[in-house]
């Protein structure tokens, strides 16, 4: 686990908000919380440590989009999950010139959510067709939209299954 410790140190010295997390429960080893301005520095640090990019995506919450980056390493088991909040206009700096693979992921995120990756040279639609460019299919409906706190893992929260009482309303809602 030397690699993980190493990375942890490097990230801490770079003044990133990084914490170890329970791999058994959430599937990644390190969790990083970024501010909008830190994204590019963080990506550069990741590349310097030899991580590869797994994906870039976004979650639609209030107040704005939470953009998720995941990195992993070829040599050892070390998966890093980073989250950054986009600014109020839904903008966040691109990392596609650092990690070229992020290009398509960012285009896809732009397709689905409308997150604008500033500095991205080519934000044409990728998966959606051109006439659907304004569709933004993954944006949540107002009554489903939740605050970012709701989807944040509670520290020490139990991982047990909560039994569900089947109520009529819920069933219809699910359908």
């Amino acid at each position, binding site marked *: 686990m030397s690699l993980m410790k190493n990375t942890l140190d490097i990230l801490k010295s770079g003044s990133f908000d990084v914490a170890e997390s329970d791999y*058994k*429960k*959430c*599937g*990644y080893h390190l969790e990083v919380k970024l501010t909008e301005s830190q994204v590019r520095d963080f990506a550069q640090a990741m*590349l310097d440590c*030899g*991580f*590869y*990019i*797994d*994906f870039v*995506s976004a*979650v*639609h919450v209030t107040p704005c989009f939470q953009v*998720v980056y*995941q990195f*992993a390493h*070829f*040599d*050892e*088991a070390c*998966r890093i*999950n980073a989250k950054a909040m986009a600014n109020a206009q839904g903008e966040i700096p691109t990392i596609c010139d*650092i*990690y*070229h*693979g992020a*290009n*398509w992921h960012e285009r896809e995120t732009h397709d*689905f959510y409308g997150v604008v990756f500033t500095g991205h040279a*080519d934000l*044409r*639609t*990728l*998966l*959606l*067709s*051109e006439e659907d460019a304004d569709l933004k*299919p*993954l944006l949540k409906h107002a009554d489903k939209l*939740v605050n970012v706190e*709701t*989807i*944040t*893992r*509670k520290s020490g*929260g*139990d*991982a*047990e*299954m*909560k*039994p*569900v009482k*089947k109520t009529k309303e*819920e069933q219809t809602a*699910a359908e």
Partner: protein
Amino acid sequence: MSTMTKFETTDKHRFLLNMGPQHPATHGVLRVILEMDGEYAMGIDPVLGYGHRMQEKMAESRTWPGFYPNTGRMDYVGAMPFNHGYVALIERMAGIEVPERAEYIRVITSEMNRIASHLLGIGAYVLDLGAFTPILYAFDDREDILDALEDITGSRLTYCYYRVGGVLKDIDDTFIKRTRAFIENFRKRIPMYNDLVTGNVIFIKRTEGVGIITADMARRYGATGPTLRGSGIAYDIRKSEPYSVYSHFDFDIPTGKNGDSLDRYYVRICELEQSLRIIEQALDKLPDGPVLAKPKRAKLQEGDCSFSVETARGVLTYYLVGDGSEVPYKLKIRVPSYSNLSLLEEMCTGMLIADLVSAMGSLDLVIPEIDR
């Protein structure tokens, strides 16, 4: 899918060539816009989305068990690991223990599916290079696997066999006998593939040194699977983040040296043997017991969770965000071919179109998986 291309050609020596969406070498509805200078592809712009179904939206609009069938319909060639990733993700999120026999069955079926997928990939690749015969030999072997899997899962291609807490149905003696017979038979066939294809002078001339991927490129683009291992990096989720019961088995990660098409092809051939080894060990050690934990309807807890599995084409990551209800708040599906294909531009710029076909085929793309 963007109908506009990024190329604004003014050079009169260059012209645009539409490769696809109905082109034999793109294996489905992928379109690649090429800016050609004679037979050289000087600019490459893949256009995706012809088979786009918005799987992630579907995941957000139904309760989590409702998404089972969709998982098998992304990569229709190697659907089992896609099932596996999804059920394992829910299990991880909800903390469900899976009976050991079920895990063994998952490994057996996943590996068989991987062999089937590799066979198709190898066959189709050699077909891209103009040899028609090997794909039919590969289909011959693949048929045995599909028949065996059909008996226990009920489907031949888009499986929906795994359940949260285990598998749908226990395997029987017929299946075990069949699988063992297949292993014995298939061991004898692998040298035949090597004789027919790997040793062929024309094949080597067409693949050696074509489409080289360096470790640095793989890192920047997130290339995984045989595409990565051809470059000499022994990275396999089954070893590095062992899920299910993969840690119980003894197998190697074959790697290439140069990262060219030949290496990627040969890594797949070697992985056939490794998968056979895993299946053999799993059949030997197969424990008794139930195959499905008592099913419960469960709410997904708040917070995020990710799960990565090794599919036939590379790392598949499901990333799920729950908001405490039964419906996933967000499900991101990171598919391997997506990242592998994004390499194409850097890998193939300035290549002959024949080499482009060779390099693209060696990525072993499944387009519906990319489009999701």
